[in-house]
């Protein structure tokens, strides 16, 4: 078994490798395309279905700016912003969540579990209720809140290293604290109404308008490419920071870039739709299960996030007696999964 004995003409080996890798690649590609198609289909469905049904022709006309009696208002002003916000916020939550989970090598380390989403919503609620801000100012404040929270959690858990159970447990504590801040501010709000409260407690697409969609769209357009450009480095970091450095990844730079981009996406999406419960947390593991372990899960996780939010919103609006905000539905899905992971955490050190 000497090294030079492996001749460059070890053709069968190479062919097997090519076959195996092609197969896995094709699988990933198919899954990603199916996910994307499903997102488009659900998006279209959301535009058509509701109290009144509008056919694809009407919907397309509205999207291209033509006036269709009835549909222009229902589809153009109500359903389109709502569906767009669901799609974009879901994508942002999914991709931001899986970035955290891969970088910290733990499915529990998603930003909505470790309190970063709570930081964003606490800041946003404070901005709206106490400072009477709106629009981009709220997004900005949410961003600052999320960054400060991320920094605080990082500093508090510094001794345990960057990854680690310590960071997750501290994050869960911080999340609980910030959620009580949200409740407190809401209880002091003069314009108390259930819609706003639900939005900031579990996340909701009710009352979505273009003003809340635009910041999320801009954030996705700018920050998703940043994250995708780091995915090779992030992939190497799944092997451990030391090995990634050995492979030529500039670990601190990749980490800072990816963290900033993920926190910003998450904060701005939270400012738009509220902290839609557990979407960031569930999307990554679902995507990994679907595309397989060797691939970068970023894009699929974003698509899964979009799907989760849009489907849950449909269920919340039409499938049950009464209407529920999207976060209630995703919360019902996510909580059992969280419990499952927590019980498993003690048994094995699991990584994504």
């Amino acid at each position, binding site marked *: 078994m000497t*090294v030079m004995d492996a001749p460059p003409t070890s053709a069968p*080996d*190479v062919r097997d490798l090519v076959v*195996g890798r092609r197969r896995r690649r094709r699988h990933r590609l198919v899954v990603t395309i199916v996910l994307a198609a499903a997102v488009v289909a659900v998006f279209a469905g959301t535009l058509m279905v509701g109290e009144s049904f509008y056919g694809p022709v009407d919907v397309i006309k509205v999207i291209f700016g033509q006036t269709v009696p009835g549909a222009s208002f229902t589809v153009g002003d109500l359903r389109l912003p709502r569906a767009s916000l669901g799609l974009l916020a879901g994508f942002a939550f999914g991709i931001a969540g899986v970035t955290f989970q891969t970088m910290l090598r733990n499915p529990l380390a998603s930003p909505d579990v470790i309190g970063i989403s709570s930081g964003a919503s606490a800041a946003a609620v404070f901005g709206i209720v106490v400072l009477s801000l709106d629009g981009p100012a709220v997004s900005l404040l949410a961003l600052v809140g999320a960054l400060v929270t991320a920094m605080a959690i990082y500093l508090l858990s510094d001794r345990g290293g960057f990854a680690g159970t310590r960071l997750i447990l501290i994050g869960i504590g911080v999340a609980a604290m910030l959620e009580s801040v949200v409740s407190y501010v809401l209880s002091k709000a003069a314009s108390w109404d259930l819609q706003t409260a639900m939005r900031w407690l579990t996340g909701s697409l009710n009352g979505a308008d273009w003003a809340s969609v635009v910041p999320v769209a801009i954030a996705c357009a700018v920050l998703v490419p940043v994250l995708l450009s780091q995915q*090779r480095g992030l992939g190497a970091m*799944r092997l*451990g920071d*030391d090995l990634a450095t050995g492979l*030529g990844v500039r670990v601190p730079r990749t980490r800072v870039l990816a963290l900033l981009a993920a926190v910003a996406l998450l904060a701005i999406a939270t400012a738009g739709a509220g902290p839609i419960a557990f979407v960031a947390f569930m999307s990554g593991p679902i995507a990994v299960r679907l595309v397989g*372990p060797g691939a970068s899960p970023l894009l699929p996780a974003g698509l899964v996030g979009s799907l989760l939010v849009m489907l849950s919103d449909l269920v919340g609006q039409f499938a049950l007696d009464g209407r529920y905000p999207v976060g209630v539905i995703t919360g019902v899905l996510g909580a059992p999964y969280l419990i499952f992971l927590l019980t498993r955490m003690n048994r094995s050190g699991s990584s994504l």
Partner: protein
Amino acid sequence: MTESHTLAAQSLTLAYGERIIVDGLDLVVPPGRITAIIGANGCGKSTLLRALARILVPRSGQVVLDGKALHARPAKEIARTLGLLPQSPTAPEGIVVADLVGRGRHPHQKLLSRWSERDYEKVAEALAATGITDLADRSVDELSGGQRQRVWIAMALAQETDVLLLDEPTTFLDVAHQIEVLDLLADLNRDRGTTIVMVLHDMNLAARYADHMFALRDGHLIAGGRPSEVVTDELIRTVFRLESTVIADPVSGAPLVLPRGRHHSPEPEHERGSGPGSKHQLEHRIEQVAELELSYSGGRDEH
């Protein structure tokens, strides 16, 4: 043979926070050789290796590769020359062996580029060299400890570096797998001329496989040289604070450390007369065997 690269530490001081681990250390890694770094727990040997692999930024001094400071060179460029196998790398859950080994190609690939012909060849070669071609499509989770370590070494091979740093590559392996891994590294060194630097706990295996050894104590370099020069009972006393007898390894002729401990002195037997079990006779016997072995194998391979 690959071109030889020079790796050296120049008045290197390493610290974690306030705690200084390695203090003003100078060393030159002999190119094209196998070097082992030995020392007691906490002496700074792993820390030193981490600095040589640029994972740890020196407090002062520098690590120099081919005459240029490591931190002054692009990360990917270094990664094409200098490979690292850390002590406990993590494999993503469910990843397939071929894909994991393929990660070693990272420094040779550009953003978004697909695998080249050469990528496939090198991965196939690395799998063949480590004897895990049959495992290529298996999940890493299913493998035994020995197989997994071979996967990591295959990954380092796929990286195609002329210098390879390994932090205790034999930990958690049984003795057969330890020998297998070290033989593999020796093959790599002989056939490709790869410079190998490893931290090893087992003094005797280190002495047998290394061409050159560095002994560390409390962050200082105590000795450096050929195993026969470095491994002596005085040095073992200094480095490990352990009384021992060093004899010639009957298998390889390399120095073999026999720790004394408090319970196994042969002295009482010696007092009873120089029977076949006496210390002197035992040493003599071992020397005879060693000579036999040497003449049989034509001596130890030297570079």
